[in-house]
């Protein structure tokens, strides 16, 4: 192979690796969005992710890990703002329902029933 050809191959490989790596980073950064889009995970009115029906163990583990992170955030804000963790969590769910749950994705109101978003999302009364 000529030196020029070798250089072209090396550059192509480099671009390919970069693309794959940044793609992976994007998925890592948008874990919750990816889970909501999976069809087996939904947002709950209590501020946490929930599994809809049967889902593989890897999905359940990701959901658990994210919920632990969420609770840590809620606790911090609750302490700073003299609210209960539940109040912070529930308020966050209001925001998530409006801004993050997309058409066709699952969410759960306080009645415990999984719903699919179709058009405008139903919000609990206290969301204001």
């Amino acid at each position, binding site marked *: 192979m000529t030196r020029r050809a070798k250089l072209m191959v090396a550059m192509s490989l480099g671009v390919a690796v970069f693309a794959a790596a940044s793609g992976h980073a994007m998925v890592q950064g*948008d874990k919750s969005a990816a889970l909501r889009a999976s069809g087996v995970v939904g947002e709950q009115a209590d501020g946490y992710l929930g599994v809809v029906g049967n889902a593989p163990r890897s999905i359940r583990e990701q959901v658990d890990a994210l919920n632990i992170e969420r609770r840590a955030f809620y606790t911090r804000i609750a302490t700073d703002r003299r609210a209960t963790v539940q109040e912070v969590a529930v308020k966050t769910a209001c925001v998530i329902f409006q801004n993050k749950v997309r058409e066709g994705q699952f969410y759960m109101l306080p009645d415990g029933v999984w719903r699919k978003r179709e058009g405008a999302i139903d919000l609990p009364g206290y969301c204001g």
Partner: protein
Amino acid sequence: MTVTKSRTRVPLVNQVLKNAALLFGAGVFAMGVGGCVQLAAPEKPIEINLNINIRQDVLVRLDKDVRDLVDKNPGVF
């Protein structure tokens, strides 16, 4: 060394077969007298009542912090 396979069943196998036959017979008998156990999920979904300790004025107060929280942590929320 020669290995000979016994032509008669081992007593343990006999015991297992006897137990299996007893269980099968008991099952047939139970079905005959209508002894089936039904497992059914409740018709009504479980109610989650979150409204007990939620203060509306607190939710209003939290609005900015919570919106910032969600904006700044897209992977988690």
